[in-house]
């Protein structure tokens, strides 16, 4: 846990590209909000590993968004059921329904459909917003945070020593 916190601090405070952090947040949004055992999450995992996405932020993001999904499940159910039972889309869903790969994906489940569409819709906004926040943090807050007493205490603590230990790692992970 301490190592993960240290890695997050490192990602935020170092020269890690804000786009890598933004992608990590966006991918964790999909993986966290949608049911874990879904085919699309295998694709997300593949993309997270193959692209230079910050994995520490991705892991923490999954934790946060998974927790959030418990609260949002009723909303996802409504969105999904509304879309799946919408008359004009019936032809599209029927053709999807007859494709084995999409059947395995369980697109016809109200929560899978609702959460997937919700998270895909938020993918780009979350990416842009995360990048903006990281840049703002680095420009305006980072120095002030470093000078606060709490931060001074943290810098003297084990988390900081771990942070220092990992700071020598490749900045991409």
């Amino acid at each position: 846990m301490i190592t993960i916190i240290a890695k997050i601090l490192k990602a935020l405070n170092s020269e890690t590209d804000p786009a890598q952090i933004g992608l990590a947040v966006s991918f964790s949004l999909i993986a966290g909000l949608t049911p874990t055992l879904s085919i699309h999450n295998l694709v997300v995992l593949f993309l997270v590993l193959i692209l230079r996405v910050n994995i520490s932020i991705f892991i923490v993001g999954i934790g946060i968004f998974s927790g959030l999904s418990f609260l949002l499940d009723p909303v996802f159910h409504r969105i999904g059921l509304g879309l799946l039972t919408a008359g004009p889309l019936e032809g599209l869903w029927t053709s999807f329904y007859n494709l084995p790969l999409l059947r395995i994906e369980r697109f016809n489940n109200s929560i899978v459909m609702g959460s997937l569409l919700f998270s895909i819709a938020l993918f780009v906004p979350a990416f842009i917003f995360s990048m903006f926040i990281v840049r703002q943090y680095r420009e305006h807050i980072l120095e002030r945070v470093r000078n606060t007493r709490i931060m001074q205490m943290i810098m003297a603590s084990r988390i900081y020593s771990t942070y220092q230990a990992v700071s020598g790692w490749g900045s991409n992970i």
Partner: protein
Amino acid sequence: MNRWIRWQGLVAFLGVTISICLIWALFVDPVIKRIIEKTGTKIVGAKVELEKADLSLFPIGLTLFGLQVTDPDEPMKNAVEIGRIAGTVDSLQLLRRKVIVDEMSVEGVRLGTQRIRSGAISKKTEKGGKDKKKEAVPGLTMMKLPDIQDLLGKENLQTLQLVQSIRTDIEGGKELWTKNIAGLPGKEKIDGYRKRIEALKGTKGSSKNIGDIGGILSSAGEAQTLYKDIQADLELLQKSQKGLNATLANFKDQIAKIEKAPQEDVRRLSEKYGFSAYGLANMSRFFIEPGITAWVDRGLYWKARLEPLVERAIEKKGNAEVIKPLRAKGSDVRFKEKEPLPDFLIRVAKVSVQLPMGDFSGAVKNITPDQNILGQPLLFAFSGEKLSGVRSVRLDGAINRVSPGSPEDSINLRLEGYKVQTKSISQDSSLPLTLEKGDADLELKAALSKGFIDATVAAKLQGVRFSAGGADAQSGFGKAVSSALSGVSTVVVKAMITGPTNNYQMQISSNLDDILKDAVGSIIKDQVAQFENKLRAAISDRVSGPLQEAKGSLGGFEGLGGEVESRISQLTGIQGGGVQKQSQLGGFQLPFKLPLQ
């Protein structure tokens, strides 16, 4: 390119995927075992245990070993125990998320086996149809008078309910009429009329010139208005008096009817506790009905328990169907398929049941919760020949949910040459009856449609021998029954069960009816008379107090009636003497007759 791609991630992805597959392969069997145990326990309402589950991948198949389903009513017994269940799954259909098993074998099925540990679950689950038991048939308790006070303690007397109801009505009526009467012309208004009369009389003696035509006409006009006002109030009071009298008469009429109601309670309770003409003419039902009721209830109970396996909740939205899955969250929406198939289907399950009398084998076809998609009902057929103690047995039936709105189930059982040995037919401690031996042929045909049952049971027992024990078998009723049954060698029973499953009616006829009626009819008649007299006296005792109170509360109406009567007579007095006639109020008399007069 390398700024965005990390090629080592590909290796990591393969590593993660292979690890997931390995973990799945290692843990899938215990996970399946757990799912079966948990889901089964939820459906049955008692522990379902599985010794081992084995999932094979090439070909995809599942084998279950040592399945035990506890009997919820007897947690130390298994309702069913199955040695091995094996089947292969159509892997192509599995890609479409459809579990299709072409053939499944169910071997080593045993019923009613003993358990080592109790299979009860702490959490009390809903028991479905079994909780809705019909009222028990009193059995041979009819030979003894039940304790009347105990009986009345258990039963709700309709007479008492009627008394309570009439008392509430009387109180409500009194309140209403008190309010109504308060709104009618009362003392103040009557005094007002008196003052107006006085004023008119004063006109006569005043300085105003009565001889003046205008003055005379003015006084006459006022007198006429006064007369009309009094007349209107009088009519209002008389109308209210009529209504009040009608209400009172209605309450008196109802009380008179309630006084006769105990007889209805006596009739109802006599019938319920078997002390009726019907009970006397159908005495065999006291021996036979408890057994049939237990069978029917047990059948309905297991049907309710297994219902989720053959039918699931579907909501239609346009051409799509929204399905509530047994487990998991959300709802699955089903669309039209090119080749429609249920999500789960076992085309044929070959079952071999090991009964104490021998092996009984058969097949169950089309096991699926989506019969509407398959277009075929679940069918089952079992048979056994030359079993120990039974010449032949055949069981078949169907559970039809092809049209979910019109569920239809049927079951047929034919049993030939069943050797009955020492079968208890009455557990009444004072007269335990046992069928010592007999050869039975039995035929059952039952159909269940939209919650209504329609079944017939026909049984013929030959070479029967009854034995009776207990203290009462030596005297009176018991002796008569015992002696009558000792001469019986053939018993023919026909039962018809009809009505809603939670309140079905059973009609039973048997050659035992006449035999028993002849033997114990007079004894029973005495018992019936004795029972009814005691019951009538006890009911009257309970009802008389509240009924007297109800009668007493009618007194309040008489007070209200008196009040209205007094106002009417005062107004009549004023009208009759004050305006047109000489009265104690004065002696004012108009010099001419009023046009209304």
